[in-house]
């Protein structure tokens, strides 16, 4: 591998109190590729992404973006770096005190790249890219269905044309058809922007649709990485158990009987 990974994690550790959530995560994400991160609920997928975004300080480990150690950047350089990233939060995290159009163009307005008047038009364009009518821009987030909220959150994540995008469970809680629609939009957006994407999911169909590469996290470590196409018949017992959703296998749920 000659190419510098877009995102490179080495030995990432994070504990909350007694609980060791990340226990030495190593991960490489190739530039302009889409990586999916698989893992059971509570396995630390969201925490990993929040560490990369600087929202949670890791206890130990190195996070490199474009070969640069994020911890060594100045405030200004770090801000410039995160100006070029986008994030779709697990529950949308839309600002409910702002109308949809202002949510969508929030980053462009914050960076003063647009006037408020121009932002309304730009919001309509971005909303069209995720299959929503311009009139949705004048609604409030609370007035939208779950699927529409996800699409608005997606629009917000891509509006400033980031070159790294994170998607945290973009299809969880949606019906299968809406899930497939969102997956399609994600693939389109990532291709159109030429961006690098890191998506969290535990839906196999979704993982195969949006991922080039896949990695599986279990007990705070990456236990497998490989091509997303092979999911379901990777030959790795944990991944295959997870992909096929079987109860028998190396992953034991801690249930009390």
């Amino acid at each position, binding site marked *: 591998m000659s190419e510098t990974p877009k995102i490179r994690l080495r030995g990432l550790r994070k504990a909350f109190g007694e609980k060791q959530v990340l226990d030495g995560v190593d991960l490489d994400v190739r530039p302009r590729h889409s990586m999916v991160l698989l893992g059971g609920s509570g396995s630390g997928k969201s925490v990993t992404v*929040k560490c990369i*975004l*600087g*929202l949670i300080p890791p206890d130990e480990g190195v996070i490199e973006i474009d070969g640069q150690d994020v911890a060594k950047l100045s405030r200004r350089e770090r*801000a410039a770096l*995160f*100006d070029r*990233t*986008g*994030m779709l*939060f*697990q*529950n949308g*995290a*839309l*600002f*409910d*005190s702002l109308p949809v159009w202002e949510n969508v163009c*929030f*980053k462009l307005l*914050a*960076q*003063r790249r647009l006037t408020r008047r121009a932002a309304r038009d730009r919001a309509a364009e971005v909303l069209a890219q995720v299959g929503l009518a311009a009139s949705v821009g004048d609604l409030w987030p609370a007035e939208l269905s779950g699927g529409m909220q996800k699409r608005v959150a997606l629009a*917000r994540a891509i509006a*400033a044309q980031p070159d790294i995008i994170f998607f945290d469970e973009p299809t969880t809680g949606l019906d299968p058809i809406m899930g497939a629609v969102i997956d399609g939009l994600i693939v389109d957006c990532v291709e159109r922007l030429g961006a690098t994407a890191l998506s969290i999911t535990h839906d196999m169909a979704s993982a195969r649709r949006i991922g080039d590469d896949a990695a599986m996290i279990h007990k705070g470590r990456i236990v497998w990485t490989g091509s997303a196409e092979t999911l379901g018949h990777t030959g790795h017992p944990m991944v295959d158990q997870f992909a096929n959703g079987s109860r028998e296998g190396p992953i034991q749920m801690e249930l009390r009987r």
Partner: protein
Amino acid sequence: MSRALDLLALVGRAAFAALGGAGRIAIFALVGLSHLVRPPFHARQFWRHFVEIAYFSLPVVALTALFTGMVLALQSHTGFSRFGAETALPSLVVLSITRELGPVLAGLMVAGRIGASMAAEIGTMRVTDQIDALTTLSTDPMRYLVAPRLLAGTLALPPLVVVADILGVFGGFLIATLQLGFVPQSYLDATWDVLEAMDVISGLVKAAVFGFLIALMGCWCGYHSRGGAQGVGQATTRAVVAASILILAFDYVLTAAFFKQ
């Protein structure tokens, strides 16, 4: 002996915890304030909260002040008439209202309304990842959420207290003239005679400090809430209680500072 030491340790630990908490809140306040002197400034946010505090608290504060002035006149009349000191009533009303009751009662009412709503709004944003979302959208949450609220609280309370002062004095005037037999003109003359600029100014300074404290506790408790709806509920309660206690404590400190002989 060891009992006594245990107790001492307990008190010491509580005192250190309180000091540490106060220190962290002070740093939080300073960081918030530092965003007011460096652009960009979120004027739209400031204006939204200023209107919410100054305009929409008007009915509550006005009614509170009016009734307080009325009760004050009634109560002190029954007290004073025992000593034949009824003529002191206008000065008692105007001084109590401008120096103490106007700012304190307006502060407590606004603490209930605004402290609670700020803590609930920011707390909900915290537990639904909206504060993290701000960071990923190139916006500093301290700058966007906290700084405008601190400024709005500080600037919105003084005008409210001017209204409270006027209505409080008016409430006393109504009862005195309609029920207690005071001559309107001489009541007003007595009010003006005793009133000094310092009485009003000290009340307005108190108001600004109280407004700042209300916004600070609302922001602090909301910002550090965790858990779901329950955590937000706790943050809301804590914001109102903390703001109310701080208002009373700072009222004492400021009174002592203004009127020391």
